C-alpha cells in the first residue's frame, strides 16, 4: 500500500499497462510532451514516444473516429479529453460507431478503448467546462461507464478497462484529482458493476456518484453526531449498475436518497430510483428521494455556482428529514 493522488494512481495504471501491452496508445490535445492539462500523461512521452503519446489537433470527432478504427484494427486507444465537455462533438462516433461496433459485427470485432475526461462543477469553470454526462452515456447499450472516486478504484478500474474488450468511458471528477488515498501494491484490477459500500449504516442509504460520494460521506459524519447512521454507497460504474448492493442496503435501512450534482431528469438517480422502486418496493419505509444539481447550465460566479450543486449541508439536512419520514 502506498498513498497516491487520484491523478497519479490513474497514471500509474496507464503507465504499467502501456509497458505490458504495445497496442495501447494515447491521443489528446497536449497529452504528449506537455503531459496533459491535468498531468494525466506526465512523463509518459519521454518513455513511450510520440506515436504512443500522440498530440492531436482540435478534432474531437476526428480522433474519436480514428480511435474507433484503430480499435477495430487491433490497437487499444485511450482518448484523453481533458474536459468531458469536448466529447459532445464526437457523440455520433461514440453512439453510432464505437458502442455499436461489436454488435454490428456480430462480435467479430472487439472494441477495447477508453475515453477519459474530467467532469463536474467547480472552480468557476462555467458552463462549457462543467459537464458530466454519465447519465447520457448510461442510456446507450454497448458502452461501459465508470466514475471512480478513490485513487485505488481509479487505478484498478482503469486497468480493467485497458485489459477489457468493451469501450469504456472513464469520468474523473475534477475535484477528486488531487485527493490522496491508499493504493494497493501489485497487479490488482477492480471490476465494473460492483458497488462499494463507502460507509456502513443502518438508518438511511445514500447513493452518490463521483464527487457526491465524498459529500455524502461528509454529511454522514455530521449526522453520526446526531445518532443517524447513513450507509453510503459508491456505485463506481453507472453502466453496468450494481443494483443488488443498493437493494441490499435499502432492505436494511428502508430509506434511499440518491445524491447527484448533475441534471436530474432521466438521470442516474432516476434509474436507481426506478429499479429500487420496482425491486425494493416492499422494503421502502419512505419514498425515495433525489437530491440533484439544478436543472440549469453552470454559471461562473461563485455565489451562482454554489447555488446549483447540493452542498454537504443540504445533503445532511435532506438525509435527516428522510430519516424522520
Amino acid at each position, binding site marked *: 500500500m502506498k498513498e497516491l493522488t487520484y491523478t497519479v494512481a490513474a497514471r500509474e495504471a496507464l503507465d504499467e499497462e502501456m509497458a505490458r501491452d*504495445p*497496442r495501447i*496508445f494515447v491521443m489528446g490535445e497536449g497529452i504528449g510532451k506537455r503531459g496533459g492539462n491535468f498531468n494525466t500523461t506526465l512523463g509518459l512521452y519521454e518513455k513511450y514516444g510520440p*506515436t*504512443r503519446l*500522440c498530440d*492531436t*489537433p482540435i*478534432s474531437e*470527432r*476526428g*480522433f*474519436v*473516429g*480514428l*480511435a*474507433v*478504427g*484503430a*480499435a*477495430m*484494427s*487491433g*490497437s487499444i*486507444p485511450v482518448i484523453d479529453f481533458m474536459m468531458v465537455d469536448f466529447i459532445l462533438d464526437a457523440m*455520433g*462516433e461514440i453512439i*453510432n*460507431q464505437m458502442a455499436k*461496433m*461489436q*454488435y*454490428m*459485427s*456480430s*462480435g*467479430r*470485432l*472487439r*472494441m477495447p478503448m477508453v475515453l477519459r475526461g474530467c467532469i463536474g462543477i467547480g472552480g468557476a469553470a462555467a458552463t462549457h467546462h462543467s459537464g458530466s454526462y454519465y447519465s447520457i452515456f448510461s442510456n446507450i*447499450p*454497448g458502452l*461501459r461507464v465508470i466514475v471512480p472516486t478513490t485513487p485505488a478504484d481509479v487505478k484498478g478500474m482503469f486497468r480493467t478497462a485497458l485489459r*477489457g*474488450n*468493451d469501450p469504456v468511458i472513464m469520468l474523473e471528477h475534477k475535484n477528486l484529482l488531487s485527493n490522496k488515498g491508499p493504493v494497493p501494491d501489485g497487479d490488482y484490477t477492480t471490476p465494473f458493476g460492483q458497488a462499494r459500500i463507502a460507509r456502513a449504516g443502518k438508518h438511511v442509504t445514500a447513493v452518490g456518484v463521483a464527487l457526491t460520494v465524498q459529500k455524502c460521506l461528509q454529511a454522514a459524519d455530521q449526522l453520526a453526531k446526531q445518532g443517524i447512521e447513513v450507509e453510503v454507497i459508491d456505485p463506481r460504474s453507472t453502466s453496468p449498475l450494481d443494483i443488488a448492493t443498493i437493494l441490499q442496503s435499502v432492505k436494511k435501512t428502508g430509506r434511499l436518497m440518491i445524491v447527484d450534482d448533475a441534471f436530474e431528469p432521466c438521470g442516474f438517480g432516476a434509474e436507481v430510483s426506478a429499479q429500487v422502486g420496482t425491486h425494493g418496493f416492499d422494503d421502502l419505509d419512505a419514498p425515495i428521494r433525489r437530491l440533484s444539481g439544478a436543472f440549469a447550465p453552470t454559471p461562473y460566479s461563485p455565489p451562482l455556482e454554489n447555488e446549483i450543486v447540493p452542498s454537504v449541508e443540504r445533503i445532511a439536512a435532506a438525509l435527516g428529514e428522510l430519516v424522520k419520514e
Partner: protein
Amino acid sequence: MEKDTGLLLYRNMLLIRMSEERLAQSRQAGLVYGACHTYVGEEAVATGVCAHLTQADMVFSTHRGHGHALAKGVSPFEVMAELYGRETGCSQGRGGSMHLFKPEVGLMGTSGIVGPCILQAAGAGYTFKLLGKPNVAVAFFGDGASNNGAFHEGINLAAIYKLPVLFVCENNLYATEVPSAYASGNPDIYQRAIGYGIPGVKVDGNDAWAMFLAAGEAVRRARAGEGPTLIEAKTYRTRAHSEGMRDVGYRTQEEVEAWKARDPIKLLRDRLMGEHVADEDDIDRIHNEVGALVLDDHNHAASSPMPKGQDALRHVYFEGA
C-alpha cells in the same frame, strides 16, 4: 494493359454489376427488407482500388457499400444473404445493405451514417503505423461526405501522422438528389487536398484502368510511409439513389444516358478488345462464369434460414474469445 489484370478488373466489375442487378430484382420481389443502394455505374472505382489490396489491408465503406464488399472479397452469397436478412449473411442478418461486415477479409464495415468511414480508415492506418504493419487502409465515400466535418478532420489527421491511407471520394455528382455542384463551394473535391498538404488526384472513375493506376501509386506511397492520398473518382450512379426510390426531377435523362454511354464495363471491354488484349471468348467465358455464380449465390442465399429472435440480444458487449 496486362491481360490478367485487365480481365480480373473486368470480371470483378461484372461480378458487382450482376450482383447489384440481382439485388435490385430481389428487392422488387420483396426479398430485401430495408434500403438497397446499388453501385451500378461506379464499379470501376472499387475494382481498381481493391485490386491492389491483400486481405490484411482494410476497407471502410459507406451506405453504398455492396461494390466495396464484393471487390474486397466478400462473396455475392454473403452480401445477398445479408440483404435478405439471413443468418448466413456477412453480418448474420443484423445489418442489411448498410452494415456489411467481414473483417476476416478486411471488409471492416459499411455504415448507414455518412462520414465515419473516413475517420476509421485513418484509425486503421494508425494501427498499421503503431504496430509496424505493412498494410494500407482505404476509405470509400461519396461527394456528399466530402462536405462533412469527418472529411476535414480525418484527412488532416492522416496527413499530419503520415498514415498509410487512401481516401477515395466517389464523386457521382449527387448526394441523394442534392447536386455536388450546389453543395460544395468547390466541386473539385481533389483540390481540397491542398489544405492538408497531401496529393489530391482526379481520376476518371469510369475508367477501370485509370483507377487501377492511380490507386497503385497511392498504395505505393502509403506502403512506403509517404502518407495518405486523396483520390477523387469522377463517376455516376445510373440507378436511383436507393432501389424503389423515385429517380426524376433532379437530373435529366440526357445526363443519365450520356453516362450510360460511358459505362465502365463497356469501356473496359472496348479497350480490352480494341487493344487486342482479350477476345470475345475471354469475355464470354467471364460472363458465363459470373452469371452462374451470382445466380447460384442468390438461390443459396434466398433459401438460407432466418436468424433466431433471441440472438438479437447477443454481442452488445464482449462475450469471451
